[in-house]
């Protein structure tokens, strides 16, 4: 039981991932889909951030004369910084496409767009 609770970061990661995935697949509204996609990506940020810290570790900043310390791993945070940028670009591009869909179709509901295309 304690093992399971000790891994609560991973649980939150999995739950967020599934919430995002649900919104992407189940919602008809394109903006809600995009929100779901954003949650889906943010879950992964949490996974990466969870990997980094070392027990008893501090921020990995070196300076002269400091006592030897245990440092946390900074690399996952750096990696996820890149992934956050990717996430923002995807969100921005997705919203731009939705704006153009709204201009062209007058709707942001997937079923209505499909209906218009069928005509």
């Amino acid at each position, binding site marked *: 039981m304690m093992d399971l609770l000790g891994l609560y970061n991973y649980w939150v990661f999995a739950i967020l*991932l599934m919430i995002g995935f649900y919104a992407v697949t189940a919602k008809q509204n394109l903006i809600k889909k995009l929100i779901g*996609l954003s949650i*889906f990506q943010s879950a*992964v940020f949490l996974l990466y951030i969870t990997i980094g810290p070392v027990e008893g570790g501090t921020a990995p900043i070196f300076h002269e004369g400091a006592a030897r310390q245990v440092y946390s791993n900074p690399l996952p945070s750096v990696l996820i910084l*890149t992934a956050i940028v*990717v996430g923002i670009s995807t969100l921005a591009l997705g919203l731009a496409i939705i704006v153009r*869909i709204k201009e062209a179709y007058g709707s942001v509901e997937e079923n209505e767009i499909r209906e218009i*295309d069928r005509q």
Partner: protein
Amino acid sequence: MNAEAYHLAVLQVVVPLLSAPFVILLRPRGLAWAAATAASAMAFIVAAFLTAGVLSGVEYRYAVGGWAAPYGIELRVDALTCLILLVVTGASLLALLAGRRSLDADIEEDRQPLFYGAWLLALAGLAGIVVSADAFNIFVFMEVSSLASYILIGGGPDRRALPATFKYLVMGTIGATFYLVGVGLIYMMTGTLNLDDIAQRIPEVADQRPILAAAGFIIVGLALKAAVFPLHAWLPNAYTFAPHAVTVFLAACATKVQVYVLLRFDFLVFQNNVPGHELQFSHFLMPLALLAILLASGVAMMERNLKRLLAYSSIAQIGYIMLGVSLLSAAGLSAGIVHIFNHALAKGALFLSVACLGMHCQGLKLSDLAGAAKSMPWTMAAFVLAGLSLIGIPGTAGFISKWLLISAALAEGSLGIALVAVVLIGSLMAVVYIWRVVEAAYFHSPPAGGPQGLREAPPMLLAATWVAVLANVYFGLIPGLPIELSEAAASSLLLHLP
């Protein structure tokens, strides 16, 4: 290797990447196109030099920024890389050379510099995926190329491209995020991102659950991006409603690059290191490959829109590639890899002739093509030859890979005979759907109500189409280069297997 040759690997990415912002600034008419084409030509020349180097036995390893692997990002070029690089840069160059008039018709003049900038970013991303030997770097380039290709697909005048792009964006992002989760889990267990380094360290932890989960996430994520059946839902509409030149570029190489990542990752990292993974991989992909061949070809037989017909045929062809790969033998693997090259040639040529038809025919329904062969004889002749290559008639490139695939399948014993049957049925179905186009264009008389306005495409477009068609014939008669590269690639991929 001299100092200049050492930098070729990184030039493959840097040339299009740095040309992209430059191209955006070019305002006078036609200049952006010329600059983008020149950058693509440079990229193709770099790929040709790399191939010549690899054929003479050099293996390129480049440490980005001078930081040696495994800490720095490593670029690596071997036989498999070269084959895919030739496909990517060749497709980009040919599509740009061919597509000027077609894109002039589709994209407003003031948006053209931005469009060509996005094109070069897509090229840089695809080339970057191929040369990277670093799991996270592959993700970054994957997103660079995906974001740019969403722009390319949604850039045309057809509003139906927009929902198609949105669907591609959502599914592409899910695929890339799955890959990212998998890479994160692997990093958690091994502490490294360099593919070779992962392969060395993974045996110690290979039986633990995060690695199994990582394998699942990475394979499903990449299969989604590669449009492996049944994860292909984004592909037909995206290819159908994109500007014609974009379809030529993306249909020839975008999904193939993802198949390449799948091969490289799976064979280097998982196979032989994770117990039982070979069987899981083969048992997972082989039924999907067979279903892709049969069902996607079946849909293509029913389809009324020419571009969508070819898009479904692309899904079936991914099936042939995965079938060869899932045999897990050197022969099957090299058949699959040759088919990546040959299918890019055939589908590139087919979509180029579609671009010719699209110059004067808006809808591209099969019924619109009635009598097209009379007014556009050269285009339709090109379509027929490229179609023969897709079907796999002897003397064309398609025959070579189907032949290799069938001989690889026959080596598998009784299962092989069933596989050969599926390949043959798939080819017969290809005969049917190509024939439907031929029948409409050659044997249906144009509607009686006056002229249709169909006439031969601009010379540049037609010339590029025939270059692609003649490449199909050339590599059908003299298949030395792709076979040599893919056999070297297959043996280096299988090096890690017992």
